[in-house]
């Protein structure tokens, strides 16, 4: 029988707000001394109460808006009750039936629309560290991460391939980075992925009776591998006439496979109920409009504009808009370059092919380099040779010095050569020619 994949995704994105979700501790916990970014609230001490972080909520709604979600004017926080040692209060503050954002979508390059069920806000948990101290195996808890704002983005089971999943994830990562609300760095755990995967016979439109959730995936490459492995594993089981178990499996990097972690007898009972410590939210349509205005130009809009305004091809436009910093750098350079007759395409080429490091080269310098290289190419080798010969004749001492090992002498000669030209020329080229002649 032929099967098709039915894949949905839950993605957690950690926001980079200054403070945590429900207290004023700093949210920048990565690599910090354990349990130094804590207070009664994020430690869940008796009597402590959560006060929601307005910026985090606004950012969550902005993510929803960027993902074409509906923003209900009423929303609230709920308590999700479960026990785990990294969960200080014995419940996580999350959102159950009234999330901040509902029903969105992302369009993939092949035109396929991936539906989003919801985008909601919650708090992160502490972190367990399993270590051996002396001879004793112990588990330590670090609460620095406890209470850091998390946005969960849940899709409909609309994916049919791992390629689509990876494209979706890259787009999502790009969007939250564009919004400036998260670093979305996979390695630091800013973005966490949980695909749920099942198979159904081709032609069927029913949801399969089981689904397998995969945890512990920390790269886009591994999500692809986990899905491929899982699809094969499930197909083998289905081919035997059996149904794969409804379970949570973990991805194992070493073997590129998944292993069973826990079987769900039935859905966990989290005993959700509205958190009485946090009054519900009632937004006005005007307020949501205000947030909409704060959303910067999103990647797909920017790609279209780059193609149109700068006459760039798909490939160039896509690469230049991958992150906001690069696209801003490009546009700044284009603006400066336009006064010197440099075309956007030349700047695009310089950025894409020559891999100029925008961190170390300013747009002005980039334009200057392009201008110079334009002129350098017009410099004939004959002219250069003639001038070099002259310079070498007139500066014999410097040549001798260089031969005796005085490295600086060569730069003096380069300078002498360059002085003979009215416009700036490529110093590297001059140096290379000089060296060739001296040796």
């Amino acid at each position, binding site marked *: 029988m032929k099967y098709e994949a039915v894949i949905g995704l839950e993605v957690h994105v950690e926001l980079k707000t200054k403070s945590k979700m429900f207290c004023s501790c700093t949210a920048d916990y990565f690599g910090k001394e354990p349990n130094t970014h804590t207070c*009664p609230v994020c*430690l*869940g*001490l*008796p*009597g*402590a*109460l*959560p*006060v*929601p972080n307005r910026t985090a909520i606004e950012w969550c709604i902005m993510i929803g808006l960027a993902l074409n979600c509906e923003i209900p004017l009423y929303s609230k926080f709920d*308590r999700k*009750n479960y*026990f785990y*040692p990294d969960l*200080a*209060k*014995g*419940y996580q503050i999350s959102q159950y039936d009234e999330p901040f954002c509902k029903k969105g979508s992302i369009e993939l390059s092949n035109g396929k629309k991936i539906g989003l069920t919801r985008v909601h806000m919650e708090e992160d948990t502490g972190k367990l560290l399993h270590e051996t101290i002396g001879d004793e195996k112990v588990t330590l*808890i670090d609460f620095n991460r406890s209470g850091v704002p998390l946005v969960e983005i849940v899709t409909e089971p609309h994916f049919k391939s791992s390629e689509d999943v990876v494209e979706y994830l890259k787009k999502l990562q790009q969007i939250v980075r564009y919004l400036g609300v998260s670093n979305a760095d996979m390695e630091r755990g800013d973005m966490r992925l949980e695909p749920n995967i099942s198979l159904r016979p081709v032609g069927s439109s029913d949801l399969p009776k089981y689904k397998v959730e995969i945890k512990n995936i920390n790269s886009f490459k591994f999500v692809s591998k986990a899905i491929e492995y899982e699809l094969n594993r499930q197909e083998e089981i289905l081919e035997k006439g059996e149904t794969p178990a409804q379970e949570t499996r973990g991805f194992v990097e070493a073997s590129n496979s998944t292993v069973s972690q826990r079987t769900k007898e039935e*859905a966990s*009972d989290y*005993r*959700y*109920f509205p958190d*009485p*410590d*946090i*009054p519900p939210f009632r937004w006005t349509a005007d307020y949501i409009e205000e947030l909409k205005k704060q959303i910067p130009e999103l990647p797909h809009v920017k790609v279209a504009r780059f193609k149109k305004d700068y006459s760039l091809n798909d490939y160039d436009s896509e690469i230049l808009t991958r992150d906001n910093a690069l696209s801003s750098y490009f546009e700044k350079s284009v603006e400066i370059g336009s006064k010197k007759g440099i075309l956007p395409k030349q700047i695009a080429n310089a950025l894409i092919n020559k891999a100029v490091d925008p961190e170390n080269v300013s747009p002005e310098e980039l334009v200057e380099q392009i201008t110079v290289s334009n002129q350098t190419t017009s410099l004939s080798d004959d002219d250069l040779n003639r001038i070099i010969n002259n310079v070498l004749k007139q500066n014999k001492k410097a040549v001798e010095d260089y031969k005796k090992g005085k490295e600086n002498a060569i730069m003096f000669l380069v300078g002498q050569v360059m002085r003979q030209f009215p416009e700036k020329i490529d110093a590297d080229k001059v140096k290379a020619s000089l060296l060739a002649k001296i040796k």
Partner: protein
Amino acid sequence: MLNRLSVKQVKNGLKEKRFSSLEVTKACLDAIRKTDEKLHSFVTVSEEEALRDAKNADEKISKGEDAPLQGIPLAIKDNFLTKGIRTTASSKILDEFMPTYDATVVLKLKDAGMVILGKTNMDAWAHGSSTETSDYGATRNPWDISKLPGGSSGGSAAAVAAHQTIAAIGSETAGSIRQPASWCGVVGLKPTYGRVSRYGIVAMGSSLDSAGPITKTVEDSALILSVLAGKDPKDATTSPLKLKLKIESDIKGLRIGVSPQYFINGIDPEVESGVKNAVKTFKELGAEIKELELFDPNYAIDVYTIIQRSEVSSNLARYDGIRFGKDRSYFGEEAKRRIMLGTYALSSGYYDQYYNKAQKVRAIIIEDFRKAFEKVDVIIAPTSPSLPLPVGSTKDSSMFGELADVLVEPSSIAGLSGINIPVGFSSSGLPIGAQIIGPQFQENAILGFAKSFEENTQNAAWRKNEPSFTEVSKGKPNL
């Protein structure tokens, strides 16, 4: 004798330099030392801190520095976190729990200059209306030590009644300030939900919990409320609404609602007649008395039980002994019962049937009161349907609290303001209390009625009654 004074009297005496805060504090500590072995109002007496606070206060007073509660000894219920003073909520789970921070209420009281005498006994986790379910032993009623003081703020109420302190702080989820104040014959004010910060109070029913004063006079309650009230950036449920500080004791032409539904079947006849006499006094003072049909308070028991147990089951989850405190085996019977009931009520498939339905009925009760307050300014009713019950009454009665609190639960569910005032005594010499219930954020209204009653009954014969137990401190025969 200085321990017998009210907050206002101590304030005046300190101002006029007739005595020092240290003298008042020592008088209270002395009373505690002499009476608390039998009464057991306190879980922890913080003598060292009290003496230090008193000396500091005296120094400030000598420099002319004033603060609303400068040098006034207070007792704090043991579910308010006090930095550096053990806080147990009367549960052995927190037997060695030393808070690293102060509850907002405690901070405000410290800023106002209080002297902290110690932490008062309560039903463990505030689960109860007797102070008999404390893991540290029952508190006794100072008017008759074979009787219960009520609860859960029974330690605070008994300490005030027995003059172990000048005033005390309690907390109420449904009745835990008003009911023990009633049984101990003192004033107990439950502010509107959201009027006083809950930050740093061991959470019980989070949508209901409310902190307030237990005092000897109405004026003292008003003064302490003015210190406690206000928006707290650390409690998202506190209101920015300003407290009206002016208490008008002229009630002429104001309307009082009296509901027959609150004189329930089985009410103690002496309680009924005591409260009705108080209503008569109000009438003589010029108030208009209106009979009011209110939602049967018995419905409130079901609503309250479901909501409070559900919240409790979640609030107590953090007490797993991993980060602080002792493990779950130290939970008492009542806490375990509440965790189980709440867990059940929130379970998938039951949520709609219980929690959700309870919230719907809660909305109806809120609406019922809203309509009532279109017709009247305040409602007067008995605080408790019975006189103080004998020690041991809670044994084998898991719903003891809910039955004892039937008349205070509806207003708690609706988040209203309410105050218990003593209105007389039974033939057996036990206090009778009446509650005045007002709309949300109208504490000044109920305090006005309470003050009017207090002023006009100041010379009544029953005002001369003394709790028998305090006589120990006056050198009369020990009990």
